[in-house]
């Protein structure tokens, strides 16, 4: 990049609000041109107040505040989009019967899942009151039994990955198989392999396409190849092909393209100027070209200018697309991605 190499500098917040604040202060006070994909559970409380000059590109958003902050530039819909479109997934999947949401008894769980509950209710879906689990829950058998007793036809396990896996295993043990409504950060490819037939037919709402969509999206194929090359360096985590690794891969490409438009030295200031001036940034044919400062469509939270999600399902032990095109949450319709 202008004769300089690109480098990732990351900080581990360990789900600790003080560590998150420390990471944010370091990022703000350091030399980085951008903060990519703020995947901090404490993002609103712990990170955003400290970001003043560093642009927050592709923040992991659970709430409108996470995506609409003054320094936020979201290029995909992430968790917020997933939360906003679960009811559309239920309708697309033609699920009849009641739906049970399960989440952690923490402020973020109440906030996000109560919103999902209200959205489902407004859409006329038979949704049961949210089942809140203590964050320290390790034995899921009690909650699996409560879901079975409720007779729910579908379950939305809005829990961290390990919690979802434990809950599904507990449901499997009591031989109760509701339709699972989830995403690819809660149920990972390795979980699909282990859960086998139990997860077959599960419905996924995704902010980006799955690895199996490489035949439809050429950019997905490049991401898969790059992750394989990264794995070959000894990075075992690169074996996980999900929306989180694709989000980061896509974000680096977008930042690199924008930085490449800087005339002169690439600094934080010059990058921010280029970011604000950028139009139609190449999203590798995975999403439509992105204009960072474009307003969000009517009805969408400020900052959510790419309100697209993909619907997926598990078929023959593989996460595949239900529809090739993404679903536009704002227009409530599928929208083809133009070829690059």
């Amino acid at each position, binding site marked *: *990049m*202008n004769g300089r*190499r*690109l*480098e*990732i*500098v*990351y*900080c*581990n*917040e*360990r*789900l*600790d609000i003080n560590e*998150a604040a*420390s*990471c944010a202060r*370091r*990022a703000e006070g350091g030399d*980085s*041109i*951008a*903060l*990519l*994909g*703020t*995947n*901090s*559970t404490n993002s609103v409380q712990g*990170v955003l107040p400290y970001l003043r000059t*560093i642009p927050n590109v592709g923040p992991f958003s659970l709430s409108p505040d996470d995506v609409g902050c003054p320094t936020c530039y979201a290029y995909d819909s992430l968790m917020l989009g997933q939360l906003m479109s679960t009811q559309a997934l239920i309708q697309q999947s033609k699920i009849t019967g009641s739906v049970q949401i399960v989440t952690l008894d923490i402020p973020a769980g109440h906030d996000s899942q109560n919103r999902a509950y209200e959205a489902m209710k407004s859409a006329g879906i038979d949704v049961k009151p949210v089942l809140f689990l203590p*964050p320290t829950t*390790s034995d899921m058998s009690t909650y699996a039994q409560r879901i079975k007793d409720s007779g729910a036809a579908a379950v939305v396990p809005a829990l961290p*990955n*390990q919690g979802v896996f434990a809950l599904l295993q507990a449901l499997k043990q009591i031989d109760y198989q509701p339709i699972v409504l989830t995403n690819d*950060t809660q149920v990972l490819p390795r979980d699909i392999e282990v859960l086998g037939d139990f997860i077959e037919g599960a419905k996924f709402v995704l902010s980006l396409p799955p690895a199996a969509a490489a035949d439809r999206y050429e950019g997905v194929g*490049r991401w898969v190849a*790059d*992750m394989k090359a*990264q*794995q070959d*360096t000894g*990075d075992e*985590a*690169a*074996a*996980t*092909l*999900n929306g*989180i*690794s694709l*989000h*980061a*891969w*896509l*974000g*680096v*490409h977008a*930042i*690199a393209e924008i930085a490449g438009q800087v005339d002169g030295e690439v600094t934080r200031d010059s990058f921010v100027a280029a970011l604000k001036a950028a139009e139609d940034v190449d999203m590798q044919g995975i999403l439509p070209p992105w204009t960072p400062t474009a307003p969000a469509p009517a009805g969408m939270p400020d900052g959510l200018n790419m309100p697209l999600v993909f619907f997926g399902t598990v078929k023959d032990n593989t996460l595949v697309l239900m529809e090739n095109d993404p679903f536009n949450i704002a227009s409530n319709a599928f929208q083809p991605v133009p070829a690059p």
Partner: protein
Amino acid sequence: MQRRRWAAAIAVACSALVVAGCAGAESPSGGDAIQISMIVPTETTGGNYPEEVSGAQAAVRSITRRAG
């Protein structure tokens, strides 16, 4: 209790890490590179998503390779 166990495990793991950043501290950087920061909940019990950094690093490798 579980939190303390993980903190202990992370402390041990961090002593062996060179490339991966540890809690509250950024990963090492060098020279005149253009830096992109990330804040991640890596190596934690509730949000173990190390593939986020892997995805970013995979993109950097790819871009660097294409730049020759």
